[in-house]
């Protein structure tokens, strides 16, 4: 797709060239939002659960270092090897060094947004290690040499016919076949051989429990288990914010996660990993990669509460009509738009503007992140940093000035409603993007102010 475009609005123009496809994409995701509504509305205590989850995560963020150390201590006691990575590069090196030590050059990997964030696949491939993604959606985008477009449904932008075509090319399925059952079976077949021959498996982590040193991986396909149980080396990579204090808190998060993500009561597999099996090594890599700096930003820290359910993407009317790749980052949608400027403000300065601030994201978020308020706050930060286009800076200055002077406003209002010349959404000029799909209202004979002076003055 157009992953080379690094500006959301431009990528969205491309995406919208094929309107029926936009309709299809929008409906596919809206369907998931509706399933989420049904599942969450069926639980009377839903809003209470969200509140608990939010408070537990707030507590985690306020005591992060303590919980991390507790987790490390307990994990080591369980026989797990714990690594700390300050950034993406160190994370990648750690994974590589583990593989190198065991002379492993092929690995299976289940879904992990963190490794996407760190660019692990490219790094390992560059170092001669083959990585096979075992999550079906991830495998599809991997075969297509694309990044995922969604954090839960990586290939949601692919139609089944197109997947059939891709599988025909790479896995030798029948030409023209698009039956999901048939295609899934073919993928299974292809992955089975891979699972049996790989000595190392990497998984993500959904929750890591400080109290017990265990971690939980949620999948629907069981591919994390398959990989981890068959391999000699299991490497689990997690961002440091994935910690929860106690095992009992899983009851809150597991109930929220799948319902928010897909409308299922729970993911098919919630696999708990605690102690290595005999003859197996388990490694956990705890990754910071900007998170501790992020934690220090009062206005933005609570986006670290995210449990990656993607409900905010499914509900986002902009995401549904621009596609995940338009956000040019591993994590797209509303949450991506508030996370990514923490990593690189300049490269992601467009993203906080890829929103109408409608607020639907904050309402579906199971951990109550104030997503749309953070989008607003990021806009202020970015423009104050001078990252706005010069013309916009100038017109906003002009607009601020005219609108703070009633006399100027009144004159300009009369003179062909000149004030609106500075208001970006009503520039009376046929070149204005407004006119591409819309008409402007016809200017009335008199403004309300003029009417008021005549009739009530």
């Amino acid at each position, binding site marked *: 797709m157009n992953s080379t475009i690094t500006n959301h609005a431009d990528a969205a123009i491309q995406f919208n060239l094929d309107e029926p496809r*936009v309709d299809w994409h929008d409906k596919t995701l809206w369907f998931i939002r509706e399933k989420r509504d049904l599942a969450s509305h069926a639980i009377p205590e*839903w*809003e209470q659960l969200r509140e608990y989850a939010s408070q537990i995560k707030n507590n985690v963020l306020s005591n992060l270092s303590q919980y991390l150390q507790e987790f490390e201590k307990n994990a080591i006691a369980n026989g797990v090897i714990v690594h700390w990575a300050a950034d993406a590069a160190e994370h990648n090196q750690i994974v590589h060094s583990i593989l190198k030590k065991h002379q492993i050059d092929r690995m299976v990997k289940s879904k992990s947004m963190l490794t996407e964030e760190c660019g692990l696949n490219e790094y390992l491939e560059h170092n001669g290690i083959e990585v096979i993604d075992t999550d079906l959606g991830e495998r599809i985008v991997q075969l297509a040499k694309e990044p995922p477009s969604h954090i839960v449904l990586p290939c949601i932008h692919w139609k089944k016919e197109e997947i059939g075509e891709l599988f025909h090319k790479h896995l030798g399925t029948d030409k023209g076949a698009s039956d999901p059952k048939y295609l899934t079976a073919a993928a299974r077949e292809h992955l089975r051989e891979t699972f049996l021959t790989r000595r190392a498996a990497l998984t993500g982590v959904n929750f890591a429990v400080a109290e017990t040193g265990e971690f939980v991986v949620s999948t629907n396909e069981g591919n994390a288990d398959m990989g981890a149980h068959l391999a000699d080396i299991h490497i689990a990579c997690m961002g440091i914010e994935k910690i929860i204090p106690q095992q009992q808190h899983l009851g809150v998060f597991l109930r929220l996660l799948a319902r928010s993500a897909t409308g299922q009561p729970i993911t098919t597999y919630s696999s708990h990993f605690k102690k290595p099996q005999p003859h197996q090594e388990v490694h956990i890599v705890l990754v910071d990669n900007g998170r501790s700096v992020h934690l220090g930003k009062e206005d933005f820290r609570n986006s670290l509460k995210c449990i990656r359910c993607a409900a905010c993407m499914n509900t986002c009317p902009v995401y549904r009509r621009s596609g995940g790749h338009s956000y040019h980052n591993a994590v797209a949608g509303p949450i991506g738009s508030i996370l990514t400027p923490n990593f690189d403000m300049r490269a992601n300065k467009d993203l*906080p503007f890829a929103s109408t601030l409608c607020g639907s994201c904050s309402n579906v978020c199971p951990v109550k992140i104030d997503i749309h308020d953070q989008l607003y706050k990021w806009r*202020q930060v970015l423009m104050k940093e001078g990252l706005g286009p010069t013309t916009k800076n100038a017109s906003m200055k002009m607009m*601020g000035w005219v609108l703070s002077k009633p006399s100027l406003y009144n004159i300009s209002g009369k003179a062909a409603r000149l004030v609106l010349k500075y208001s970006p959404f009503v520039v009376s000029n046929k070149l204005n993007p*407004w006119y591409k799909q*819309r008409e402007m209202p016809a200017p009335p004979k008199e403004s*309300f102010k003029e*009417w008021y002076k005549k009739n009530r003055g």
Partner: protein
Amino acid sequence: MRVALFIPCYVDQFYPNVAIATLELLEKHGCTVTYPLKQTCCGQPMANSGYEHEAEGCSMLFAENFAGYDYIVCPSGSCTLHIKHHLHTEKNAPEEAHIRKTVYELCEFMVDVLKVDTINASFPHKVGMHQSCHGQRGLHLSQMSELNAEPYSKPGSLLAMVKDVELIQLDRIDECCGFGGTFCVAEEAVSGKMGKDRVADHVRHEAEYITGADMSCLMHMEGILKRQNSNTKVIHIAEILNGIDN
């Protein structure tokens, strides 16, 4: 009850009838209404674009214009929300605090403060209700479909008092229309598509009119309807409640 009328700049310039209807409606329901003549704009277009710092002057002017009233009422959820959340300058702290507390969107003012229980108007048409996001999710004018909570609607309860209105059902009851202030030009492709989709939901359910509590969303949808030569029109809720039948 001394009420100051706060009219958004684009309503003043493009939709004077909405402002007139708001004024008359408040007067009918017993308010003494003043329109401070030196008002311009609340500064929201700048603030939402990331230029809160350039809207200082607007905010100060706003505080000067609207100090000293019992209530401030505005026929726009979005502008009301902006004042409620973002009117903070160094200069007039006590006045600004009072303003933030007493500024109301028209429908919530009629329901929560005036406690209106009868409306003398008739509008014999099929009407689709557009929930503008800032009014709904920001000011809580209506319950939000995302939440597991009791449904209610302040604008809906007012419309229910109007004779002969037939409210249509929508497939997506509170999806954003895509106006979004500067979003509508900066992200024109998505904004236009969202608008088309929103309008289509109303048209599919045979709305003769789309109404709502925010003229900016309605202006955006009107622009799309006109481009499509549609027979469906937009009308601000104040005009229906005031008893104008176009």
